[in-house]
């Protein structure tokens, strides 16, 4: 088996060597509790605060607004549940875009169990949430959750326009920026949102570390209580190595964002063009919308995604079928369904996401192997179903 060609950077990214080194050092040297008053504790506290500055700088936030969490799912829960709960006197209704990540759907489900209602914003054929759809939300909505970039299609959402309309209606806005942060510039001020979450492992940091930015005065009830770490927003002893790793990864990502973004975008354009030459009837979803520079969501008609993935894996290519499904069933992705993609095409959709490990040679080789896998899957389709 040759080395895998890793085209699944939206699922997770390899940890950068600088990050691993900093984390190793933190594991070795920063063993005290950051809440302790002694100088060893203060040393650990200082490392956390340094990481907080690095992380906040990546998204144009004030470090004092940044709360370390375990990642995207926790951040989404803290923002959506915490904000809705804090505003319960104003109404028990939350809203989110139909194409939001499972984590937001999950947070809304928690609220639903507690008596909240929810509304969803639709998605157009290009995979974008129309800004004017905010006007159709019922009265009493207190929080709106919007993703910056869709994890499956990579389509960038008009968050600033949506947030402006929501703000005009007195609705607080949470932005799930997990998939966008580290790949495109993210700035709290220009987005105009109240909460924003990102996750370290999507840009070369470790799994299990993320951050939620909470704008000053934005209402928030904490979900983990006890000791008042993170300004009382998130109790629990800090994940020091994870936080240190997040900080270093954020600093590297910010420094290299423009160059790396341009490099990956050029690669993706070549990849997409070659893919369409090799498989002429391939259909790229969200092709007419602004997208992350690294993501290609593509259907190969007649080649079922689970078959192609099996063939790709045997040929040394790591990719994903839409969003990962625990049971392995061939179900059309809800995101593609919301975009109006027919079922028979949606079950043939694969997501290739490029990143730091991608370069012209392995991406070119991937096209050949993908075309071969699609042919094999189509041959199976003639026999199996």
């Amino acid at each position, binding site marked *: 088996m040759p080395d895998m060609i890793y085209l699944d950077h939206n699922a997770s990214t390899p940890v950068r060597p600088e990050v691993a080194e900093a984390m190793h050092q933190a594991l070795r040297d920063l063993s005290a509790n950051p809440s302790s008053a002694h100088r060893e504790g203060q040393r650990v506290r200082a490392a956390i605060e340094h990481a907080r500055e690095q992380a906040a700088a990546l998204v144009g936030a004030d470090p004092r607004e940044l709360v370390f969490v375990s990642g995207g799912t926790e951040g989404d829960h803290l923002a959506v549940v915490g904000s809705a709960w804090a505003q319960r006197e104003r109404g028990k209704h939350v809203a989110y875009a139909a194409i939001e990540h499972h984590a937001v759907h999950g947070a809304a489900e928690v609220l639903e169990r507690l008596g909240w209602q929810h509304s969803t914003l639709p998605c157009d054929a290009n995979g974008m949430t129309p800004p004017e759809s905010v006007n159709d939300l019922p009265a009493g909505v207190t929080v709106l959750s919007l993703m910056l970039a869709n994890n499956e299609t990579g389509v960038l959402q008009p968050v600033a326009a949506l947030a402006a309309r929501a703000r005009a209606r007195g609705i607080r806005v949470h932005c799930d920026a997990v998939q966008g942060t580290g790949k495109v510039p993210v700035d709290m001020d220009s987005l105009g949102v109240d909460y924003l979450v990102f996750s370290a492992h999507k840009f070369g940091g470790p799994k299990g570390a993320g951050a939620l930015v909470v704008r000053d005065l934005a209402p928030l009830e904490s979900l983990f209580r006890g000791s008042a770490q993170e300004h009382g927003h998130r109790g629990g002893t800090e994940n020091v190595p994870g936080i240190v790793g997040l900080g270093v990864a954020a600093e590297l990502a910010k420094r290299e964002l423009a160059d790396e973004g341009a490099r990956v975008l050029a690669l993706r354009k070549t990849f997409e063009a070659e893919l369409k030459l090799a498989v002429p009837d391939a259909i790229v979803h969200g092709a007419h919308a602004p997208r992350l520079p690294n993501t290609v969501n593509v259907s190969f008609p007649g080649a079922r995604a689970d*078959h192609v993935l*099996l063939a790709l*894996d045997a040929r040394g290519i790591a990719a994903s079928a839409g969003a990962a499904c625990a*049971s392995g*069933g061939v179900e059309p992705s809800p995101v593609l369904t919301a975009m109006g993609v027919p079922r028979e095409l949606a079950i043939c959709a694969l997501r290739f996401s490029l990143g730091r490990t991608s370069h012209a040679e392995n991406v070119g080789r991937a096209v050949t192997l993908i075309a071969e896998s699609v042919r094999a899957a189509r041959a*199976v389709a003639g026999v*199996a179903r």
Partner: protein
Amino acid sequence: MSAMRVLAAMSGGVDSAVAAALLAEQGHDVTGVTLKLACYGTTPLSPRACCTLDAIDEARAVAMRMSFPHHVVDAEQVFRERVMQPWVDGYATGRTLYPCASCNQHLKFGDLVSRMDLVAADKLATGHYARVRQETDGSWGLYRARDTHKDQTYALATIPYAVLSRVVFPLGDLEKTEVRGHAQRLGLSVWDKPESQDLCFVPDGDYAGYITGTLGEKRGSEPGAFLDEAGNRVGTHRGILHYTIGQRKGLGIAMHERWYVVAIDASANTVTLGPRRALERDGLVTGPVNWLLPAPPAPGTRAIARIRYNHAGGAATLWPRADGTLEVRFDEPQLAVTPGQLAVFHAGERCLGGAEIVAGLSLAESGAGVARARHEQGSAPAHA
């Protein structure tokens, strides 16, 4: 054996786990696959041997333990259309099918074989207790397992002949206890998992309840007449899908003699009862036969015929018909020849093939004489 690329079917049970693990241990390039069938996610959380989402996790755990990749392939539609629906249709029309054979035929050795090319696999491996062997003339044969109690050639008799050259059965030469021993030695968590007994998609064994309740089937549940052999009404049955040929329990009818279900007539909605001797048949007629031979055997070939999974088998003579069906004549009458069940033929250890039973034959009505006359030139045993 040089290193092969193997696609290993893994049900989540101990047998297929050990089959895959042994090949991986021998250095073969194994890819594990679990077929997701229709029943996943709907069965209760009992420690069942297969067919729950747990089964996928168990298979995955074995693959992780042995460091080979594992994938899940959706086969719900094929399972529904080729296994479940015919089985339900059978019950609704008075025939008792054996769905494990159609699952092997259409899923594991049909659908899955077609997926071998996806990973450019040389062989498909399963955890069946059976053996394949290449004959001196280059053709392939299916043989009974060394562990005769576990032998599964009956359930494999309808797999395509062409598949034999592409499969490996790593458990064919092992006893069940040895298989569990390997699982324990290799640290596989499934080593003490219980055996599956009933159909994987009906864990509690209540077929009629599953067909009418879970599947909402209406056919076959209309009450009708119990008849005696002379055609007299002797009671009321609960719907033909509650009965199978040879059934004695659950008739809800008291007789001075032990009575059995001897015939089911779906069109008349009647179930005929009779004494044990009324179950005896001198032979049977099958549907199209799946021969696990390069060519059908000569008329008059001697074989052991098995007419259900646990049947010890009876000596018989095979009379293939020109239309691909078969007439079988038993040396001694056999009990409860059941339409829909599989008749499977062995010559010694070798499995010659199998076919669905269409009807039983009694000597008086047997057309064997005619069949014999048609084929009288070739009556030498083909496979001793």
